[in-house]
């Protein structure tokens, strides 16, 4: 599904990836648990086509990721950034806007479906009327999970997706990842993620 072939990447004067090879099959769960500052987020950015590798190739569904294919690739991905960077605005409207993107319009989205997710994740309904800038980190992360579950993409890229949660909440999402048939790449330092069926990677420099 996703393949890194001899990929090298340098940002500033820091060599993040060197001759890096990785083969991720459909449905695999990969945990990137290297030290901070070693290029975990950059690896996600490479898959999203935000950066190009200095050397090597990255394949998505057997096709090399290029400026021509990045848009098609992005349409198959849902992404949670570290801070879950929702735009400023009322939660309900932010969600409506995202599902109004051309690539997302085919998804059966409604406020009812969002509310079901809120109930599932123990979020009060009032959050719909709150501005994204005033909600807590933990609430943002749960809203982020609601978003990517509703987007229902085949590939999930998660950057420290449970860092602001308590153990009980974490477990819910770890279980979700363990049981989904989606392909998941998760960046996390948290040892609770290091369980079956996650394949843990700790170094990007061959």
């Amino acid at each position: 599904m996703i393949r890194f072939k001899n990929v090298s990447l340098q940002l500033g004067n820091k060599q993040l990836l060197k001759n890096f090879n990785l083969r991720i099959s459909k449905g695999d769960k990969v945990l990137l648990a290297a030290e901070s500052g070693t290029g975990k987020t950059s690896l996600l950015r490479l898959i999203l086509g935000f950066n190009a590798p200095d050397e090597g190739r990255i394949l998505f569904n057997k096709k090399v990721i290029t400026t021509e294919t990045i848009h098609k690739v992005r349409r198959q991905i849902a992404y949670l950034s570290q801070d879950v960077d929702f735009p400023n605005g009322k939660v309900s409207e932010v969600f409506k806007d995202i599902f109004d993107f051309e690539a997302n319009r085919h998804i059966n989205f409604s406020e009812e479906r969002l509310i079901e997710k809120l109930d599932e994740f123990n979020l009060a309904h009032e959050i719909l009327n709150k501005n994204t800038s005033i909600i807590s980190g933990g609430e943002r992360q749960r809203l982020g999970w609601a978003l990517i579950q509703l987007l229902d993409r085949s590939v999930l890229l998660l950057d420290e997706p449970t860092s602001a949660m308590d153990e009980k909440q974490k477990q819910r999402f770890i279980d979700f990842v363990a049981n989904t048939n989606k392909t998941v790449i998760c960046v996390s330092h948290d040892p609770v993620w290091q369980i079956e069926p996650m394949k843990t990677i700790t170094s990007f420099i061959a």
Partner: protein
Amino acid sequence: MNAADISISGLLLGLLLIAPTLLIIWRLKLGFNQKLLVAVGRMLIQLGFVGVYLKYIFLLDNAFVNLAYILLMVLFAALSGIRNSSLRLKKLLFPTFTAMLLPTLFTIFYFNLAIVQIDHIFQANILIPIAGLMLGNTLKTNIVALKSFFNIAQKEEKTYLFLLANGATKNEAARPFLKEAIRTAMAPNLATMATVGLVSLPGVMTGQILGGSDPMLAVKYQIMVMIIIFFNSLLSNILQLLFAIRNGFDNRDQLNKELLSKA
């Protein structure tokens, strides 16, 4: 009725006011005497020229000459807009020119045909001053719009990438910035319109009243002018920012940071 003429002696007496101005600046050590003299000199030369060539352009009143004059005004506005946005916008000269020209042409012809309903729509003494009014305002708002757009885009880059990674196109992900930049740029126009007449009389009205027009006629012109200025600036803003989105990001949809720093 015509405006009272200002005679040569009157002009000289007016210019004489610069002497005490310089004296005050010198006594208070405000330190801008030299700048003031340069500014006054430039004003005399520039407006002197404008007076002379406008006189001939109005006399000639040739459609092509008038249009060419407008093109020149737009070019100067575009150049000045780019310089004042402190962006390295060599790439944006043509788009800026277009973003200012198209709405201005449309609005000015609408003004002449539908509002004032004159037969000769290229009539110099309406075309040129009205286009000048619109361009002046468009220039101001476009500078603010461009600056705030790139500021927000830089500050909120993570949000942009988050949306991009969850299905948005470049345009969709940048839309919140576009909206915010337009709101910021148009806010002063809204405020001006809402308070017009309370504090000072606006320029067009003042000019017409000094020129001997009936105040009601002056008011009618003022209202129409404010509406076309608002319309024109808004349209030009939107075009300008759409072009900025087109040119301001690379083929991986990443903000082109080279545009942001002045060389």
